[in-house]
C-alpha cells in the first residue's frame, strides 16, 4: 500500500517535472522560432543559443515586486491565478504517454491514472479553466481586465462547443471515451485520415480555447493593454503565463492522442529501445504540434472580435454538427 502510494507520487512528480520543463522550453522555442520568422536572433546570451534563458526568466519573474492594486477583491484576486494554474496542470493526469510496459512482473503505465472517461475529464477540467480568466478580470476591479475577462470567457464558452463536437466523430469510431482505447483503435489508420474535418475543427477550436494567436483577443495588447491579467504582476502573472502554456501542451497531447495515433509508430530494435520508442513517437508528435502553434503565431494576424464570434458560431459549430451527422450516418450504414 505504502509502496504503491510512493510509486504513484513518484509518477506524479516525474510527470509534473517533465511538464514544467516542457512549458519552460516551449517559451524558449517560441521566442527562438518567432525570432527566426521575423529575421531576429531571439535569446542567445544566456547559455549556448540562449538555452538557459528560461531559468533566467523564472528567476527574474519571481524576484519582481508583487503589486496588488488597492481596489481589488482580495480573495478572488489571489484565487484566480492558482485556479488557472492548478486546473491547467490537472488535465495532464489522464494523458497516456505510451504503451504499458512490463518489467519483471511489474507493469508500468505511462499515465498517472487511466479513467474510462478520460477524454471527458480533460474537457471538464478545461471548461473550469474559464473561471481563472473570468474571475481574474472581475476581481481586478479595473476596466481593461474586466473587458478582457468578459471577452475571453465568451470566447472560451463559444469554442468549447466546437472543441467537443470536433472529437465526437473520433469517440463514435472508437466506441469509447478512454484515451488509451481511442489510441489502440488507431492501430490500422490514424484518425486524422478518417476524420480530417473533425481534426480541423478540433485544432481551430483548441487554438481559440487556449487564447492563442489568431484568437488571442482577450490579450489584444493594442486595445486591452494586457487583457484579464493587466493588474497582475510577479509570480501571479507567471502562473497565468504557465497555465497558458500548460494548456497548449495538454491540447497538443490530446490532438496527438485523438487524431495522430498517440504513441503508435514503428517499433524495432532491442527490448529497451522497443519499450521507449512509443514514448519517443508521442513526444515527437506533441513537439510538432507545439511547433505548429508557434508557426501560426508567427504567421497570422489577429481576428477582429465580431469575426471571431461569427466564425465560431456560424461556421465552426454547424460544420461540427454536420461532421457528427455524416459520421454517424456512415457508421450506421456500415453496421446495418
Amino acid at each position, binding site marked *: 500500500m505504502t509502496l504503491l502510494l510512493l510509486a504513484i507520487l513518484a509518477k506524479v512528480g516525474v510527470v509534473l517535472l517533465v511538464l514544467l520543463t516542457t512549458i519552460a522550453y516551449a517559451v524558449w522555442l517560441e521566442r527562438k522560432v518567432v525570432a527566426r520568422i521575423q529575421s531576429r536572433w531571439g535569446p542567445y546570451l544566456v547559455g549556448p543559443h540562449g538555452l538557459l534563458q528560461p531559468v533566467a526568466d523564472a528567476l527574474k519573474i519571481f524576484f519582481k515586486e508583487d503589486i496588488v492594486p488597492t481596489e481589488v477583491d482580495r480573495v478572488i484576486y489571489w484565487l484566480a491565478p492558482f485556479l488557472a494554474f492548478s486546473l491547467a496542470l490537472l488535465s495532464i493526469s489522464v494523458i497516456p504517454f505510451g504503451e504499458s510496459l512490463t518489467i519483471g512482473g511489474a507493469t508500468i503505465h505511462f499515465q498517472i491514472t487511466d479513467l474510462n*472517461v478520460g477524454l471527458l475529464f480533460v*474537457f471538464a477540467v478545461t*471548461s473550469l479553466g474559464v473561471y481563472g480568466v473570468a*474571475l481574474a478580470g472581475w476581481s481586478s476591479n479595473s476596466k481593461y481586465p474586466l473587458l478582457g475577462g*468578459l471577452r475571453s470567457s465568451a470566447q472560451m464558452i463559444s469554442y468549447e462547443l466546437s472543441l467537443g463536437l470536433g472529437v465526437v466523430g473520433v469517440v463514435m469510431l472508437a466506441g469509447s471515451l478512454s484515451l488509451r482505447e481511442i489510441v489502440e483503435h488507431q492501430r490500422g489508420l490514424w484518425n486524422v485520415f478518417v476524420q480530417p474535418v473533425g481534426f480541423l475543427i478540433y485544432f481551430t477550436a483548441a487554438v481559440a480555447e487556449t487564447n492563442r494567436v489568431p484568437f488571442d483577443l482577450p490579450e489584444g495588447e493594442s486595445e486591452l493593454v494586457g487583457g484579464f491579467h493587466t493588474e497582475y504582476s510577479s509570480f501571479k502573472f507567471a502562473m497565468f503565463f504557465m497555465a497558458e502554456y500548460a494548456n497548449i501542451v495538454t491540447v497538443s497531447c490530446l490532438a496527438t492522442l485523438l487524431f495522430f495515433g498517440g504513441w503508435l509508430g514503428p517499433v524495432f530494435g532491442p527490448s529497451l529501445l522497443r519499450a521507449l520508442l512509443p514514448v519517443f513517437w508521442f513526444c515527437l508528435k506533441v513537439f510538432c504540434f507545439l511547433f505548429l502553434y508557434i508557426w501560426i503565431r508567427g504567421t497570422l494576424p489577429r481576428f477582429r472580435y465580431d469575426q471571431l464570434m461569427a466564425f465560431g458560431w456560424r461556421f465552426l459549430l454547424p460544420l461540427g454538427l454536420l461532421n457528427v451527422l455524416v459520421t454517424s450516418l456512415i457508421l450506421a450504414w456500415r453496421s446495418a
Partner: protein
Amino acid sequence: MAPLFYIFAALAILAALSVVLQRTPVYSALSLIVVLCSLAVVYLLLGAEFLAVVQVIIYAGAIMVLFVLVIMLLNARQETPSDRSRLARWLGAPLLLIFLGELLFAVWERFPSAATRAAALPDAGPRAVGTVLFRNYVLPFEVTSVLILVAVLGAVVLAKKRL
C-alpha cells in the same frame, strides 16, 4: 472511501450554506460551484465516473459560467439586505426542517439498509446511461430538448424586440 465521502459531503453542505449566507453575488456563485464539484466527487466515489464528469462539464463548466458572466456584466457588488419579511423569518426555519425531514424519510424508505443502497447502484458508464436515455426515456428526453428550444426562442424574442 468513507473518509473521502465525509470530507466532500461536509464541504458540499458548508458551501451550500455559504451560497445562501454570502452577501456578495460572486461569492455565492463560487460557493455553488464548490457544491457542484463536491457532488461530482461523491458521484466519483460511488463509481459513477461518467455522471461525475458530466456534472462538472454541464453544471460547473457551462451553467455556472453563465451565472458568473451575468454577475460580472451587471457588476453586482455587495448586496444590501432588504426589509426582511416577518413571515419568512418565522416560517423559514420550521418549513426547512419539515422539508429536510421529508427528504430524509423518503431516502430511508427507499434504501433501508446499506446492502440495498449498494445494490441499488446501477452501472453508470457512458454506454449504460446512453442506452437507458435513448431506449427507455427517448420521449421525455426529446420533449425536454424541445422545451429548452422553446425557452431559448422565448428568451431571444424577449431580448430582441425587433428581429
